[in-house]
């Protein structure tokens, strides 16, 4: 039956039951078959996937990957490394994940990752060695678990027009009762806990002791009534700082750099007690569905182009030493960086790897404190 005849029959109301059922059958087979046809097509162009922090899902971080594959990798975003690990432990598979140095030992022990074959990375030769030689980063075969990518500080971003400093910049800004209800804090444990340890004066090599736990928890409890919002969403914090809803917040470099670009009077403090410094990087999943693409993702992120973009837009350090060549010393200092990362990493406090039990207990305690207990 011709299509036009068919339509005509429908219009005139003379379509026979058989003809109608035949069309239905045809339609049903078509509908069932479509996903299979599409699935084959899609499988050929499946992109590699990366599980990362919010803000890294921009094409600028993956120039060579996009050049090779025509599109950026698939992104999944987490708000903290601990919840990311829990999610992957329950069966979420990606090619590449983006934890931080203090997570490496626990993540490697989970058995979900494989060491990175650095010979497959064209940019590996330019990676700053201090960032690779971190505690627990060497697998049995001598290869690293984590390919370092970004590094920076956790400190206080405050409104220079709304916060009155008493002497030097200090973590005390976040504990200043004058700014009650105008303080922002991170929502997930990790950085918040380590920073509170600096504020409480707990040395990092003592952080696993019960006394340290109590001291840090006490400091965070004291701060809780002053906090307006606990969130890991940097956009929320940024907007609140620019509107004056918050006057100071615990942030990474990027919040201050982004707000300064909008001419909002904020400063990323260099606390007299020292800032918390961190190095994050990329780990390869043991069952990565697309290992080739995974290496392409890592290589793209380690490239000079990705590094230049990150230093300029976010104010984070990059692991490729050549990425810094495009910037003057003044430009780097303005964002709190240096071309020799050891200067910055040595000046601050560097969180040390802890065992799983500690990590769970820390997260649980922080959640209790946030909830008011």
């Amino acid at each position, binding site marked *: 039956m011709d299509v036009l005849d068919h339509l005509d029959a429908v219009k005139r109301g003379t379509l026979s039951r058989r003809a109608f059922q035949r069309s239905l059958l045809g339609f049903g087979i078509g509908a069932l078959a479509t996903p299979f046809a599409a699935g084959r097509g899609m499988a050929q162009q499946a992109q590699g996937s990366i599980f990362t922090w919010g803000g890294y899902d921009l094409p600028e971080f993956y120039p060579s990957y996009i050049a090779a594959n025509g599109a950026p990798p698939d992104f999944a975003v987490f708000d903290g490394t601990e919840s990311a690990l829990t999610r992957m432990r329950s069966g979420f598979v990606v090619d590449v994940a983006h934890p931080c140095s203090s997570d490496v030992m626990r993540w490697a022990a989970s058995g979900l990752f494989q060491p990175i074959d650095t010979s497959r990375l064209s940019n590996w030769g330019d990676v700053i060695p201090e960032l690779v030689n971190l505690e627990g980063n060497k697998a049995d075969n001598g290869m690293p678990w984590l390919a370092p990518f970004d590094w920076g500080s956790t400190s206080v971003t405050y409104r220079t027009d709304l916060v009155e400093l008493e002497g030097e910049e200090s973590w005390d800004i976040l504990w200043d009762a004058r700014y009650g209800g105008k303080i922002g804090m991170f929502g997930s444990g990790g950085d918040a806990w380590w920073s509170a340890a600096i504020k409480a004066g707990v040395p990092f090599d003592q952080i696993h002791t019960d006394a340290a736990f109590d001291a840090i928890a006490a400091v965070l409890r004291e701060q*809780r009534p002053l906090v307006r919002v606990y969130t890991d969403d940097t956009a929320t914090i940024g907007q609140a700082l620019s509107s004056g809803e918050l006057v100071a917040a615990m942030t990474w470099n990027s919040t201050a750099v982004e707000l300064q670009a909008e001419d909002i009077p904020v400063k990323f403090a260099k606390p007299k007690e020292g800032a918390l410094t961190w190095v994050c990087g990329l780990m390869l999943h043991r069952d990565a569905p697309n290992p080739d693409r995974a290496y392409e993702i890592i290589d793209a992120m380690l490239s000079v182009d990705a590094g230049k973009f990150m230093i300029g837009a976010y104010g984070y350090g990059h692991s490729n030493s050549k990425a810094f060549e495009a910037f003057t010393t003044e430009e780097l200092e303005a964002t709190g960086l240096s071309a020799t990362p050891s200067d910055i990493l040595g000046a601050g406090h560097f969180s040390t790897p802890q065992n799983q039990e500690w990590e769970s207990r820390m997260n649980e305690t922080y959640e209790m404190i946030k909830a008011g207990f």
Partner: protein
Amino acid sequence: MVTVPDVPLGRPRKGFAAWFRRSEAAQGLALMSPTLLVLLIGIAVPLVILITMGFWTREGFGFDTTPTLDNYARIGAEPIFVTFLARSFMVSGIATLVTILLCYPMAYYVAFHVHRNKMLWIVLMTLPFWTSYLLRVFAWRVVLGYEGVVNSAFLSLGWIEAPLEFLLYSQTAVIITLTHAWAAFAILPLYVSLEKIDKSLLEAATDLGDGPVRRFLRITLPLSMPGVVAAFFLIFIPTTGDFITPALLGGPDGMMIGNLIQLQFGPVNNWPMGAALSIVLMLWIGALGLVFLFLTRLAKRRLA
């Protein structure tokens, strides 16, 4: 049409095929099997896993599978769990109540005073719910925010000196958002039950001397009670465990039990505790639902 049987004629069918042909129950089950399978895999199995896991304890990243009631004992003993449960019931109870109170007049109007294009009215009322839930929650952030619609309007009118801070990141914000987000679930059942009411009963009540208020209380309200009960359950049950609204709008003091359960399965990494909390929440909702049902039955009997 003539069917040619694959077994020679005259010989009775044996085995499975014969049994299947005879048994109506088997045929019925076979018909239901796709749905049953989904129910089994999607609801029954997870529920069993949840119940079992609630008796386990965490051990590093694994589980200690010796059955124990420790998790439930902790829920009873530690104030955080009780506080969160109570807060969730309060917030979602208020939200449910306000939603029903606000939606009842709307449903009433459409059921009794709109005579043409009723469907259009209903569609228009539920139009906001065609957007995603998350989008509506974010929209309320914009409305209630520090520099949001409400605050800017009040500021420009000179009613307030500084932005109202309690609007966002508070229990108020959660209640307002839940009330709006779930309105469709109240309007529809209320409308259906009001629409079904026989108008001649109302006329009879008027003829027999009832004023509008008494008529409403004695006829309309009791007869629309099924709709109210349905709306109560449809809103109260999901909002008690709601997670995204308090996460985005609740602030430090607005967190609810859903957030606590999510934390157990996320950063806190205590799945057995999360399972036990979910079970306790389910039991509490069940119990409160029964109490509510009982009270409405009682009230109906009184009214009748």
